[in-house]
């Protein structure tokens, strides 16, 4: 065995022992993904269920009772009767209901003679949360239209408008938001784990000065960085595998792509994240600064700019351009495709290439920064 290899083996042994003795690295690699994935996987959902709507019928009639029943039949809505508008407004302000459906006094009368005056229902939506307001409007509209259509059929009145729109959802026919959020969460978790592993653990070595004594040993800098990356890579991949298994086993997300491509993407991304963590730890002098920088450059972009929750295509152009410098964006895209769609090379190849470039840049930066700090 060449001396270089022997040294690398020795260094690896040192890293593994260090990991086994200090619980922090193991906690980051295993506990953090578990907690984050479980809490967020169950808690973060865009599936609206049981949105409460106050219904104010100014004149109680057969029609208005039917409408309340139609709303209650929708799995997304939960009508609550209110005696008047004032009471309903108080319910909105107290956060008890998401909106108010007002059926005016002349509602039933107008319904009888639809050709002269259309009957109007009014929805007052609490638009503090605009997304939920819009979704609420869609469901109320849907419930009213299907009620009107059923009624028209009953009374043999031709429904106006003869064009139906049939929507079909690919990959995710029930539009379960977990199916698209959980693969994104896996990427989110990995991006935090990868960077924190090296950023915090190694920042402490710099802070305590043990890094310098290591550098004074005969081991070359390249060997040292390699040993560190290999060791934490092993940890990170185990954490990743656990996260993927949880996504499939606990959250029931289908996996339709190639496991090999998943492994390749995860490896490239971890290499980037670990090397990036080394850069942060070498630049930041203290653990406090390293923690803040890691928070700012991994957690927030992974949450906001990766396409995990917010569609990148809807952002302003300058922000869309900015998302390209955060590699987590490519990982989210790859994972969503592998989980839900399959091995679509036309989409995967450019994203894998981008991850490879990011990994290469991060490793180069690590070497440059470590060398400069020694001088």
């Amino acid at each position, binding site marked *: 065995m060449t001396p270089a290899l022997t040294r690398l083996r020795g260094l690896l042994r040192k890293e593994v022992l260090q990991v086994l003795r200090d619980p922090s690295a193991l906690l980051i690699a295993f506990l953090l993904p578990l907690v984050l994935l479980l809490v967020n996987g169950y808690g973060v959902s865009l599936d609206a269920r049981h949105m409460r709507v106050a219904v104010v019928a100014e004149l109680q009639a057969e029609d208005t009772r039917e409408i309340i029943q139609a709303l209650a039949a929708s799995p997304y809505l939960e009508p609550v009767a209110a005696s008047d508008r004032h009471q309903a407004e108080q319910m909105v302000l107290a956060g008890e209901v998401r909106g108010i459906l007002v059926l005016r006094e002349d509602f039933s009368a107008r319904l009888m003679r639809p050709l002269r005056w259309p009957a109007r229902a009014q929805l007052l939506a609490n638009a503090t949360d605009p997304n939920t307001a819009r979704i609420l409007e869609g469901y109320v509209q849907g419930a009213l239209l299907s009620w009107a259509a059923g009624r028209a059929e009953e009374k043999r009145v031709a429904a106006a408008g003869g064009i139906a729109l049939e929507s079909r959802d690919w990959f995710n026919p029930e539009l379960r938001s977990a199916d698209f959020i959980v693969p994104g969460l896996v990427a989110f978790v990995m991006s935090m784990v990868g960077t924190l592993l090296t950023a915090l653990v190694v920042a402490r070595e710099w802070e305590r000065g043990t890094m310098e004594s290591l550098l004074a040993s005969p081991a070359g800098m390249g060997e040292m960085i390699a040993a560190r990356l290999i060791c934490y890579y092993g940890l990170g991949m185990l954490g990743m595998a656990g996260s993927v298994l949880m996504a499939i086993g606990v959250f029931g997300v289908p996996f339709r792509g190639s496991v090999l491509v998943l492994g390749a993407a995860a490896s490239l991304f971890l290499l980037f994240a670990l090397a990036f963590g080394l850069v942060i730890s070498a630049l930041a002098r203290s653990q406090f600064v390293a923690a*803040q920088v890691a928070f700012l450059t991994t957690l927030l972009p992974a949450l906001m700019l990766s396409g995990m929750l917010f569609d990148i295509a809807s952002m302003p152009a300058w922000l869309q351009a900015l998302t390209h410098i955060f590699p987590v964006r490519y990982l989210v895209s790859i994972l969503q495709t592998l989980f839900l769609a399959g091995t679509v090379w036309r989409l995967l190849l450019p994203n894998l290439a981008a991850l490879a470039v990011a990994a290469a840049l991060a490793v180069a930066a690590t070497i440059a920064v470590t060398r400069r700090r020694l001088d």
Partner: protein
Amino acid sequence: MWRRILALVLKELTSLWKDPKTRTVLLVPPLVQVFIFSYAATFDVSHVSLAVWNEDNGAIAAELMRRFDGSSAFHVVAAPDNPAAAAALVDAKDVAAVLHLPQDFSARVLAHRPASVELLLDARRSNTALLVAGYAQTIVQDFALEYAPVPVAPLTLETRDWFNPTLDPQWFILPGLVAVLSLVVSMLVASLSLARERELGTFEQMLVTPLRPLEIMLGKAVPAAIVGLLEANLVIAAALLFFRLPFAGSVAMLEAALLIYMLSTVGMGLAISSFARTQQQAILGVFVYAAPALMLSGFITPIENMPEAVEWLSRLDPVRWMLVVARGEFLQAIPTAPALDAIWPMAAIAVVLLAGATVSVRRALA
């Protein structure tokens, strides 16, 4: 007693302010986050790329296609001529949806027979898919009305959007950021100040001074709360002055709620640091607590969507209650009673955690 606490508070604040790197890290990131967050956090869709697979050469199909292209929600980028080509476009995320107009579409509409068009959605983007389906429905309905034999619909729904008439997502996100950004900074300052003293061994020195446990605890809690309050007010100023948000409610109520909120987050930070032996463990604890606290607070996704058990868990989350007050005061002019309903859980959380932190300092003394 108050003089001693004041001295400790001043010492903590000076030590935070005198290190330029710490100073930068306290001030710059929140402002960067305000700008990036508030532009990124939109669920709205506009100019969604659409492929139209048109098998119908009729004029009516062409007109419907123009309606889609002309709306602000869509723009047509591709015209595949077979299902496989359409599928490939969706797979590769070139388009978010495919509109399919069947061969007999125009003929059926002209003959006043029921016609249908099909929309294929990329449900990897589930929220977008939901909204896109809604917009498409509206366009098709309006179009259908014009070509219908009967001139009026029997039933229309008018929607009035309350509190946020233009459905501006920034009005939703910015009041939330007031709570979210101050959460992270106040917890980090509180938990690290105690953990650092432990790690460096200066904690024992502090214990032998005349300071009593309650005073030590307050001396650590107050500076962190001050930093958090400053940060929250920085975000409020940016929201009002730069983003021009309305402010409907009472400033006094908002500030009072913020103070109590800060005491609860600082209490959490101190509680974490009483379990941590090193700064690293404290940072880790803050991460493990703050990330779920953010996600379960209703900051981004509605609380009603959570399973019941998780919804209960979120009642222990002070961020959830602060969001009610912040959004209420900015947008809704929330009345006093519901505001107080949200404030008392935060006060309870603060009292329990701060009392716990005091006990743990006293135990270190024994």
